[in-house]
């Protein structure tokens, strides 16, 4: 797919490892993808595939003993009309420059709104803090701006909510407060890590509608991390599928759902029950056999080969496949697709 929007973030061969007593966990082991300005990118995969660590690597907040050991994260920013490219992996996590980007230019919404909001500060306090730190405004102006942001995210009675604590709000309202905090400084990239997973389906619908509206209004790029394929189909333009720390397939959303090439992507799509699909006889779901491998002892060759239905012995269990672009914008990491390039 041709897309001439400017690049915002380029992740190149990113490797983030966790050095534990039991061994090294290669949480992210070669992630390559780009995010363009104003685009919605979906990152999909099962728990432990490295999607959250990838997001944290971009923000430079990988928890210890994790460390980005290789690769580049190029962030293209515009300052007063001048273009500037920064490699986020080279910046000090606590340095002024990184702290100036984090929260202001790249913001994040987390999965659990209860644990990611402070229980001892009011909502206004927390949103105001981001505004004061990044925009250097005085407390009164910051408060006005916080109220404005809260009404932007559809919070009922923002003048009252601003003085409430997280525990006084419902799950959906908390997530709105989180989104308000993330948006308060008009970021160019919003990373949303499973923002609706903890919510009920009708609340989820409210939040998804809200995020789509905000993106139209504010024009930021969104990196949407989720394991819910329904959310991916409805919210994203391009999709990155991850398995055991590696990007195994990436393409535009229509290609992923209608012309997926990697056996893992196909198996994932077939294993979900879909509304309206029930037939009179009970069909079985196509499940992926086995389970996600032990991160301490990854299988040799392609990490998916022990669970793959199309495995070629002697190739898939020996040689690690490389990423191949089989069509413009459609990349697959699989031996079986390699000769189609």
């Amino acid at each position, binding site marked *: 797919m041709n897309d001439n929007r400017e690049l915002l973030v380029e992740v190149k061969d990113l490797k983030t490892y966790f050095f534990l007593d039991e061994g090294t966990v290669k949480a992210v082991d070669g992630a390559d993808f780009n995010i363009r300005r104003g685009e919605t990118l979906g990152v999909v995969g099962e728990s432990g595939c490295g999607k959250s660590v990838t997001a944290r690597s971009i923000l430079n907040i990988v928890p210890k003993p994790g460390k980005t050991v290789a690769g580049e994260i190029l962030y293209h920013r515009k300052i007063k009309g001048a273009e500037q490219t920064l490699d986020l992996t080279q910046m000090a996590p606590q340095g002024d420059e990184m702290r100036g980007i984090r929260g202001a230019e790249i913001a994040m919404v987390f999965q659990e709104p209860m644990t990611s909001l402070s229980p001892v500060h009011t909502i206004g306090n927390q949103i105001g803090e981001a505004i004061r730190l990044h925009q250097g405004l005085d407390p009164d102006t910051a408060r006005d701006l916080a109220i404005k942001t809260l009404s932007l995210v559809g919070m009922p009675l923002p003048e009252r909510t601003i003085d409430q604590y997280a525990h006084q709000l419902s799950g959906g309202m908390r997530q709105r407060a989180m989104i308000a905090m993330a948006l308060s400084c008009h970021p160019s990239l919003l990373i949303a890590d499973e923002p609706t997973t903890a919510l009920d389906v009708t609340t989820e619908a409210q939040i998804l509608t809200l995020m789509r509206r905000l993106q139209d209004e504010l024009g930021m790029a969104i990196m949407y991390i989720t394991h819910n394929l329904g959310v991916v189909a409805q919210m994203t333009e391009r999709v990155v599928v991850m398995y055991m720390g590696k990007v195994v397939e990436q393409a535009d959303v229509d290609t992923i*759902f209608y012309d*997926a090439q990697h056996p893992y992507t196909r198996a994932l799509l077939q294993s979900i*029950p879909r509304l*309206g699909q029930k037939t009179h006889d009970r069909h079985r779901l196509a499940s992926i056999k086995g389970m996600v491998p032990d991160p301490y002892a990854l299988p040799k060759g392609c990490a998916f080969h022990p669970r793959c239905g199309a495995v070629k012995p002697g190739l898939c269990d020996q040689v690690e496949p490389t990423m191949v672009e089989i069509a413009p914008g459609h990349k697959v990491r699989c031996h079986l697709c390699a000769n189609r390039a």
Partner: protein
Amino acid sequence: MAENGAERPLLLEVKGLKKYFPIRKGFFSTRTVGYVKAVDGVSFFIREGETLGLVGESGCGKTTTGRLILRAYEPTGGEIWFNDRKMGRVNVTNLDRQQLKQLRQNMQMIFQDPYSSLNPRMTLLQIVGEPLLVNGVARGGDLQDRVAELLRVVGLRPEYMTRYPHAFSGGQRQRIGVARALALNPQLVVCDEPVSALDVSIQAQTLNLLQDLQAEFGLTYLFVSHDLSVVEHISDRVAVMYVGKLVESARTQQLFLKPLHPYTEALLSAVPKPDPRRRTEPIVLQGDVADPANPPSGCYFHPRCRYAIERCSQEEPQLRELGEEHFVSCHRADELSLQGVASAAMAV
């Protein structure tokens, strides 16, 4: 399934089931200042060998309903009639301790969280064998044989018997929970969100396992879940709850294709469709779920309902049968024509 289902005898019949949790004020005093009506007059039935899906959002009382049926909670009111294999048709709410122990051999539960529902200090042999031991069904070598067989049935290796739960993944732990529930060969299994903590690929394995076991042992499931796609997949009939009340129940296809309650319609529309070519257009409900301690007047759903008329805020609708086995509690159910889900073709 649905065709021959009608002739099957009832296994469970719930009538006007209620559970009110008291709200107490003060640290030491036990002055009751109100009640959370977690379950408020719920009626439904389950036939032998079928799966009833119970759906609703968090706090709607679906889990409480499941627990009341096993009398893990004492009901505040209502009747639970169960057709026990040995005791015959009994009202669960009236049984004494001895009878309850007997009853629970035929009613078991699978829990949501496979991490907290298994004792980390017990081996698989102890976990799965406990129901057999407590009820004097098997002991010693016989017990080991039975546990080995149960583990095999749920797809685990019998050699794992001496291991502890921490050695297993989420999906495997859920299989251990299933093996424990099946140990006494129960008639009814209450599955409380059994797959919601699992990854998609593991979720499919577990759902398939539950279906295989149902076919093999003639099990009856009450399947409690908030995930409508999963419920549609596994259930013969579905019941929808909202703030402690049952608002609609029908055969699965009927409910999903032609819902009669506006809340069901909104729920179905809100599920994001895993197909980028079909845009989900959710009916976005305004506001939050009603507070079960202080519910609105009339129909509990009326403040969020886009079809609400004056009557809805004054008079509480009763559950009535509209069409064969299609129960709904909505004043306007006959006049409204609501949107269900269209039949989905497989994308891949």
